């Protein structure tokens, strides 16, 4: 197997190993009042970290020196995209790979959480759910609009009125929108 390909295979384990080693040094600096003949709060984390490092090294050795075996390395798929078994034309899952969409969803989620307390739950969720549905493949704008509004109102009512959760109302002037919606839904 080419060297570059081997190095790529072990790269995640190298990163994990380095991170674990660093955490071990952090564990060494855990401050506590030690009691003679009694293990401290650093022992268990150090045991876990040591075992993690050993597992990483073992995995790296396996990846470097053993032949790749699709049957043992977890490279299974529930169903391959559009696969038909033995001429079968049964409905199945069709899938591609779009990591960029996932990153977009993650970015949208981070932004949502960052502005939530300022913009209030109602307004932020209205936009966030629209973005999610768009990323999920829904393309009809009127449907996205209606569903976003419906989902937001449902969650506002359910969690504030039934489950009694104080969802963020936001700061001025956004809080006026939140309070107006709450009045409409009969939430006091």
């Amino acid at each position, binding site marked *: 197997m080419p060297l570059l390909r081997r190095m790529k295979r072990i790269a995640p384990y190298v990163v994990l190993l380095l991170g674990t080693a660093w955490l071990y040094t952090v564990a060494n600096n855990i401050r506590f009042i030690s009691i003679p003949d009694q293990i401290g709060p650093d022992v268990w984390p150090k045991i876990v970290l040591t075992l993690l490092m050993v597992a990483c090294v073992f995995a790296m050795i396996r990846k470097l020196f053993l032949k790749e075996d699709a049957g043992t390395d977890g490279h299974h798929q529930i169903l391959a995209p559009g696969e038909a078994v033995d001429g079968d034309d049964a409905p199945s899952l069709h899938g591609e790979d779009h990591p960029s969409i996932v990153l977009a969803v993650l970015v949208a989620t981070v932004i949502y959480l960052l502005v939530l307390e300022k913009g209030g739950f109602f307004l932020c969720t209205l936009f966030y759910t629209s973005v999610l549905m768009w990323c999920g493949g829904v393309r009809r704008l009127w449907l996205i609009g209606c569903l976003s509004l419906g989902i937001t109102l449902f969650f506002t009512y359910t969690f504030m009125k039934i489950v009694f959760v104080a*969802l963020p109302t936001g700061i001025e002037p956004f809080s006026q929108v939140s309070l107006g919606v709450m009045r409409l839904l009969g939430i006091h």
Partner: protein
Amino acid sequence: METLRLLSAGFAQILQWQDLLALVIGLVIGMAVSIMPGLGLVMGVVLALPFTYSMGLEPSIILLTAIYMSGTYAGCFTTILYRIPGEPMDVPLLWDGWGMTRRGEAAKALGWALVAALTGGIVSSLVMVGMAGPLSKLALSFGAPEYFAAVFFGLTTVVALADNSLPDALISLFIGLLVSTVGVDGTYGADRFTFGSSTLMNGVPYVMVLVGAYGFGEILAKIGQGVKIDAQPKAGVATKFPTFKEMWDIRATFTRSTVLGTLLGVIPGAGATISSFVSYAIEKQYGKRGNKIGTGIPEGIVAPQIASTASVAGHIVPLLTLGLPGSGATAVILAAFLLHGVQPGPFLLSNPASTLVVYTILASMFVSVIGMCLLGFLWIRVVIRVLTIPQGILATIIVMFALVGAFADRNSLSDVWIVVIFGAIAWVMGRLKLPVSPMVLGAILGPLAEDSFTRTMITFHNDWTMFFKQPISAVFMVLALLSLAFPLIKRAFGGLNLGRPKQPELDHNRPGVLEH
């Protein structure tokens, strides 16, 4: 006799409208989430948790248990009718269930699945209810070494039976155990891995890790794969029961699978998925028609279905009597108990009020099994329609439930951040082909493992051999070491055949494989 009396009282209690309503709602939710590929019964239980905050303890636990129970059964519908496993535990059903459908015997296949679920659920519930009292008494003799050994056994069994690369599964497990150490240590009050953050001082709640990995993470994976289900509801979907003679002919399969499912369910960490796969493998290896498994015979449906439904009682009873969560779903049920200020364990059966609660929950298992079979038989055509909801809309609803549910626990955005972070971690792990479920189990059982380990070391003056000197603890430790050696033994002797070659196999890197 005392058990019968208490169970009767439990049955009477379950007829209260709040409990009955919670049970029915739970059955419907469990069916809906398990039919949708990628959603899963753990996600159903997790998403229902916030709604239990304003409910009483009894209806809360009954609701979550009903979701758990019906979630082990309803996934067989899409597996048999559309060749799409609703849950990872339904993958073994795929080969024979779809095989029967292709021969025009879909109704019969559904009938076999229903009978199997009913048998597994009722028999294992009977056995485990009978064991509740003795288990509770045994639990009183459980000390720190025994708890640590039981958890250790559970974690090693999950890793060993998972059929992943063992180092990858162990890495995932240790990451989970490490996550559980973040925060203020319970014994010394020392800050560990908090990096000065007041948020991290409260630790990483395992429920948020669950929601992140199985909820948000799973949705990210589905969105990233653009998964679409092209299945249209089939007209004339029905269930046809097998005859008594047909069931009698495969009585050995029924017996074997029920025993396996119940026993495996008791092991902490070995969920319905493992029970299903192991039962299927055993049937293939030792069944009378083992060589025909995978070609469309009832045994291929009955064995995994019985085992997965039987494992539910196997998990619930140790949770109630020992306080030990055996799976992701029971970990969430444990969280529901704690939210209501109740610690499950042997002391739950020591006073009359909580004893009635326990036996009502146990009685609800029986009613759930019968209810889910009835619902499945009568409403299958309606339930199947869940598949027609566009994935983009469903994903949005699930994400909102996950995020708002996380916020609802402590009214804290930091919990929501934890969900998002672990969702991203689960997605990255999936892309790196690292299994996620051991990490989640490590996060759930880590605190119990550490606490019992530390207490043992303190009590017995750092004598680690105590784990092997105490009889019960020694048994668990030996079993754990044997289970770690199991993959090596399996490779050396060509072991159990867990799947047909060239057939779709389980994606172990998707969340939800090991945890049910």
